[in-house]
């Protein structure tokens, strides 16, 4: 849920990076954290666990400046992608205002991408929301691997699997190198703020 503080003139929105295990959700957040100025970002919170997988969530608060006199604050969350952490994913989605679906370009992850998108729809439904209502952006990550010998999926194939009707804006990205990371963030921030503002008639 968005929080609108009329006394401080602040709007707080929650954006969740969703996707299969090891697709690069935390990498997106780390790149944003390193690239943003200190004034615009808060402290990044990661819950230390063994190995490089996210077991609970990561959180990065950002200050995106003013729209219509309101300070826009966005909190970016990631979920653990591995299938077994279903209940954690569900709890991080509580009160979500926007979703970035990070898809993995590796050929071996084709079904994992599709499963994860279906899992997102199911979990949103449990919070009384749906993919038709919540703003979403799709990011095809790890595009830098296309030129390597590792088998990857083509953009057409990924679109066919995840965004066949072109319902959501999508971006090619390489989160490790920072390609497409800010394009994704900019688009989801725009859509999320618009969605929240429209809902509460802050804008027409």
């Amino acid at each position, binding site marked *: *849920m*968005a*929080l*609108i*503080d*009329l*006394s401080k003139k602040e709007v*707080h929105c*929650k954006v969740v990076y969703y996707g299969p295990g090891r697709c690069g959700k935390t990498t997106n957040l780390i790149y944003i954290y390193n690239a943003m100025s200190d004034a615009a970002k*808060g*402290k990044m*919170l990661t*819950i230390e666990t063994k190995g490089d997988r996210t077991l*609970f*969530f990561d*959180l990065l*608060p950002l200050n995106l400046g003013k729209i219509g006199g309101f300070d826009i604050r966005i*909190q970016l*969350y990631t979920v653990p992608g591995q299938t077994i952490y279903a*209940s954690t994913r569900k*709890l*991080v989605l*509580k*009160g*979500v205002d926007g979703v970035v679906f990070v898809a993995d370009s590796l050929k071996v992850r084709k079904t994992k991408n599709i499963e994860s998108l279906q899992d997102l729809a199911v979990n949103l439904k449990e*919070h009384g929301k749906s993919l038709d209502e919540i703003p979403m952006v799709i990011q095809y990550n790890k595009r830098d691997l296309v030129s390597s010998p590792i088998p990857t999926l083509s953009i057409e194939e990924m679109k066919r699997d995840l965004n066949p009707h072109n319902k959501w804006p999508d971006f090619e990205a390489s989160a490790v190198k920072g390609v497409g990371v800010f394009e994704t963030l900019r688009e989801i921030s725009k859509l999320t703020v618009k969605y*929240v503002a429209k*809902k*509460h008639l802050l804008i027409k």
Partner: protein
Amino acid sequence: MGDLVLTTAKLDAIRAQLENNLIAAGIHSVLLVDSAGNIIASCGEHMQGIDIISLAALTAANFAATSQIARIIGEEDFSLLFHKGKKDSIHFAKIGQDYILISIFNDNVSLGVVRLKVTEASQHLRELLN
């Protein structure tokens, strides 16, 4: 869980509750958050030194995690959590389904007083937030 729009009047009433009931009783920092991890109000001089955004997110996650423990033993939910530290301790209380009140206090205040004051404040806050 619906969106919450805070008007200045509502927020002032919430802050007054926190100040008059909890800070006045000797609890040094009080934070009201929702179960998605958003901060609604904070009070107390020690709040400046605390990363409240992380505290709010972790509190929401902590409640969600312990509610799974509750289910294992046949309870639906735990309504309060308490963590004791060497110097400071922290008390979490659920307010209705969607809000959590966090109180941080030191040895100068007993847990009994905290629980009593939190229970009193919870009733008023519940009315304000509904």
